[in-house]
């Protein structure tokens, strides 16, 4: 018998054995009998009319099975890809929501837009045939940047969307903010760009679809973070199939980061196509294809103003943002730069008045949607940068200015002026913890040492709060969500006492098989090794909303906890019968049901046997079996927060920025597995460091071509870019989740970009630099240094 391994322990992960030995089961590893290969033909133009498509030469090629286009989709009467959120403008007018066809209908709107699906015996045949499909394009002028897209006379993506504006959204009390600005002793101002990113999970997207004419059943294997949502959206809204005839399986998935939490056109096309050709069909994206088809992230242009009184107290914040949506509305697209952005602008501060206006804009680029952090890193970047600008303007120490404005621990629960109410937190505790861990008081000595070797050293701070554990359904519904955001779990105790959990979240690196097993092990007193977690298959798991928004433990873990409690409740009834005691006298602890005040007890295993072999069992009042299911809908978001400190060194000769030290102290609530939480923080931080220093999705303004379309051109953080990070938790408990958990998947990515850029600006402050846009590449930094050092007006 193994041991109970519960909350707070760091057992090594259950999932590791298969991954370490090459026995993972990713979509691209799966083969089906008679499987054909599919290849998508994608638009090479950013904006063009399709005047005609000639399939003939492709169809005549040996090995080619079918060539499907938008005309075939239309002939079959299929729907377009739905958007899961409907936001409105200040007057309550709904956003513009043009259809997003699964294969282009007469027009393409970004490089990578899908034009045809070619199915052949082999990938090679399908690729060759795709080149033989002749598409007659009439190329139109295109626009890729938000500033250009809203200018009068800009190319229009949709006839009925004036100025390419999907929605002119706002939040907050504009009049109160205007009044506060009139009274301000100082106004700090900042214009900034939040750079477009490409998520790049290491496993490229892939899908296999199969249709069984004997049962009428469709099966789709897909690299998805939320198979049940894919099943619902695809069957009910796109392909118009009965939901019970569609099975979606997301097996091992090699990283998601948001990129795999949308319903993609490829999924619908391949499911539809497999029935048309009566063959299983497999598609695996190349990395280059991922670059022009995986949904992108961020891409904001922002102007922010912070009003302060003479002592540096924040009076009001005003933020105006243009957010790039790309060519169509993706599953969560319009929600990200609005509902997940505006409400976070309060941060950890007591700013009494905030106004935020976001213009959500269509452009001829890949659709933009959630990427790790999703809206919250953008909000944190605005806020933490402008606080540094204000500190510099007013000559107040950056840490002191933050401290003066932080919400004290005693003030929680704290109602912000932008919708949300923080239940718990301790920003000052996180700040003090980070200052000590980062050894800030000796920074001056380190800076002097750098200076002696000709380097500029800088220190940067960022605090943050995020809203995660998505989400309270009723609240989300008021903000425009078109679905529920609860989670479900089933706890199945087998006759011999082992436990299988069926849960609607999806594990793609987060270690759920381990963390969730720890929760069950502790709650039911079952050996850790006797608990397995099942996820990712709509035929096995009852229902679920999947994994995103740091929701799996917060919402899914809560459902699991509730289901385990129900098992205990039923177990007590069975124990009362077996032990001939009153149910009220039965206590459950450490896997044993006992009669209070006696040594009479039954183990969970004995209760399970009685439940499945109900010979001596209260069948008149209790059903046999020991399996319970729970749905959990949270009452509020959770609000992890923290303080990050980055230290950089810049070589003025090359402009190269080296991250030399990084400290994070995060409040993530109860920690179930410290090892896994630390790993999540490391990975999250480095994704934020990637945004700050390396990563940038660049489009050519005239042609609309993606210039950073491969791992050769889009710089990903590598092992030798990074120092050893110091991460720690300083937790307050969430007051409304069953275990006090808050979520930790995104915090690193939210806190780090501002910390790193604040450090870069600090290192260059002596040159008069007040802002650096991301990524802080050697080229950009070298130019800043050169411009600052140039003698005046040498024409």
């Amino acid at each position, binding site marked *: 018998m193994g041991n109970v391994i519960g909350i707070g322990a760091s057992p090594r*992960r259950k999932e590791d054995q298969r991954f*370490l030995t090459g026995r993972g089961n990713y979509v691209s590893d799966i083969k089906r009998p008679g499987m054909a290969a599919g290849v998508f033909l994608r638009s090479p133009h950013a904006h063009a009319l399709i005047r005609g498509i000639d399939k003939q030469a492709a169809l005549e090629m040996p090995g080619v099975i079918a060539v499907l286009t938008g005309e075939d989709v239309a002939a079959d009467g299929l729907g377009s890809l739905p958007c899961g959120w409907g936001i409105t403008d200040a007057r309550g007018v709904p956003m513009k929501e043009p259809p997003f066809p699964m294969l282009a209908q007469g027009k393409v709107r970004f490089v990578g837009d899908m034009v045809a699906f070619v199915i052949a015996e082999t990938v090679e045949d399908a690729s060759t045939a795709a080149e033989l499909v002749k598409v007659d394009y009439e190329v139109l002028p295109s626009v890729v940047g938000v500033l250009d897209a809203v200018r009068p006379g800009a190319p229009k993506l949709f006839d009925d969307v004036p100025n390419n504006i999907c929605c002119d959204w706002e939040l907050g009390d504009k009049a109160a903010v205007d009044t506060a600005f009139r009274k301000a002793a100082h106004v700090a101002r900042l214009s900034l760009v939040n750079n477009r990113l490409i998520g790049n999970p*290491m496993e*490229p997207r892939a899908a296999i679809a199969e249709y069984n004419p004997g049962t009428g059943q469709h099966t789709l294997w897909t690299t998805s973070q939320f198979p049940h949502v894919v099943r619902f959206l695809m069957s009910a809204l796109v392909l118009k199939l009965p939901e019970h005839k569609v099975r979606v399986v997301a097996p091992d998935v090699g990283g998601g980061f948001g990129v795999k939490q949308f319903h993609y056109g490829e999924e619908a096309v391949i499911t539809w196509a497999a029935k048309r050709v009566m063959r299983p069909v497999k598609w695996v994206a190349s990395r*280059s294809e991922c670059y022009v088809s995986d949904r992108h992230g961020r891409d904001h242009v922002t102007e922010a103003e912070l009003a302060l009184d003479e002592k540096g107290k924040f009076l009001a914040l005003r933020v105006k943002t243009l957010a790039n949506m790309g060519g169509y509305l993706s599953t969560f697209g319009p929600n990200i730069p609005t509902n997940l952005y505006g409400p976070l602008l309060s941060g950890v501060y007591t700013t009494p008045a905030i106004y935020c206006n976001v213009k959500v804009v269509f452009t001829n680029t890949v659709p933009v949607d959630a990427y790790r952090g999703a809206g919250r890193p953008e909000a944190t970047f605005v806020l933490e940068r402008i606080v540094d600008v204000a500190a510099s303007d007013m000559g107040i120490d950056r840490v002191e200015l933050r401290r003066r404005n932080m919400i004290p621990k005693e003030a929680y629960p704290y109602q912000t002026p932008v919708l949300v109410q923080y239940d718990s937190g301790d920003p000052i505790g996180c700040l003090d913890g980070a200052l000590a861990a980062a050894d800030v008081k000796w920074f001056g000595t380190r800076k002097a040492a750098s200076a002696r070797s000709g380097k500029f050293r800088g220190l940067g701070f960022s605090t943050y709060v995020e809203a995660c554990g998505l989400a309270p359904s009723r609240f989300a519904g008021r903000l425009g969500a078109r679905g529920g955001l609860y989670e479900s779990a089933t706890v199945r105790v087998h006759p011999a006492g082992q436990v299988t959990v069926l849960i609607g979240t999806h594990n793609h690196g987060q270690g759920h098989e381990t963390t969730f097993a720890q929760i069950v092990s502790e709650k039911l007193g079952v050996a850790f090794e006797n608990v397995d977690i099942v996820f990712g298959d709509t035929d096995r798991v009852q229902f679920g909303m999947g994994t995103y928004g740091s929701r799996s433990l917060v919402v899914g873990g809560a459902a699991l906890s509730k289901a385990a409690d129900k098992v205990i409740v039923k177990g007590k009834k069975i124990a009362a019968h077996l032990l001939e005691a009153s149910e009220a006298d039965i206590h459950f602890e450490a896997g044993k049901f006992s009669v209070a005040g006696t040594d009479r007890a039954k183990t969970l295993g004995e209760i399970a046997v009685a439940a499945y072999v109900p010979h001596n069992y209260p069948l008149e009042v209790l059903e046999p079996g020991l399996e319970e299911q729970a749905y959990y809908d949270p009452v509020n978001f959770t609000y992890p927060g923290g303080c990050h400190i980055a230290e950089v060194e810049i070589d003025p000769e090359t402009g190269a920025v080296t991250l030399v030290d990084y400290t994070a102290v995060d409040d993530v609530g109860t920690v179930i597995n410290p090892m896994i939480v630390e790993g999540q923080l490391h990975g*999250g931080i480095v994704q934020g460091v990637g945004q700050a220093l390396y990563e940038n999705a660049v489009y050519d303004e005239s042609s609309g071509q993606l210039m950073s379309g491969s791992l050769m051109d889009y710089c990903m*953080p*590598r*092992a030798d870019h990074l120092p050893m990070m110091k991460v720690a938790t300083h937790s307050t408990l969430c007051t409304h989740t069953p275990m006090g958990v808050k979520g930790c998947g995104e915090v690193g990515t939210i806190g780090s970009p501002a910390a790193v850029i604040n450090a870069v600006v600090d290192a260059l402050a002596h040159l008069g630099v007040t802002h650096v846009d991301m990524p802080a590449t050697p080229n950009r930094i070298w130019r800043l240094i050169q411009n600052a050092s140039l003698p005046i007006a040498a024409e």
Partner: protein
Amino acid sequence: MQISFTLNAKPVTLDVEPATLVTELLREHLNLTGTHIGCDTSQCGACVVHLDGLAVKSCTLLAPALQGKSLVTIEGLQGAPGSNQLHPMQEAFRQHHGLQCGFCTPGMVMSAIALAHAKAALTEAEVRRGLEGNICRCTGYQNIVLAVMAGTAAMHGAGSGE
């Protein structure tokens, strides 16, 4: 054409199209799907295998290049010969939480073992430089670096077979 080589310590002879990439040979023809394909520019390192003990990216290697050589994939690693134990480097990744989604892991482990074979004691900087050809999006590399240092020490301390 016919090629003969050693695959995970067993001799194999196969008929292959000369233009077959080793990734394709392993994944599609030999059903060894532990070797992954994460990119199309030889940047990510998810496909690293050992060819005569050296770490190579199998996405840029043609099958005929295997002739007469010894190829080891992630599936061929083990601890003590004939045992079901993990190789010390695999075990070090497990102990140090050096993996999350698992997709880069086979290539990362193969690169790490080759690094350890080349030098008995590795500094942090040497490990970071040595993993320059392997991208991980999940871990931030910190625990991978710790795992490789520990795995290297274990390989040279306890001794092991590949």
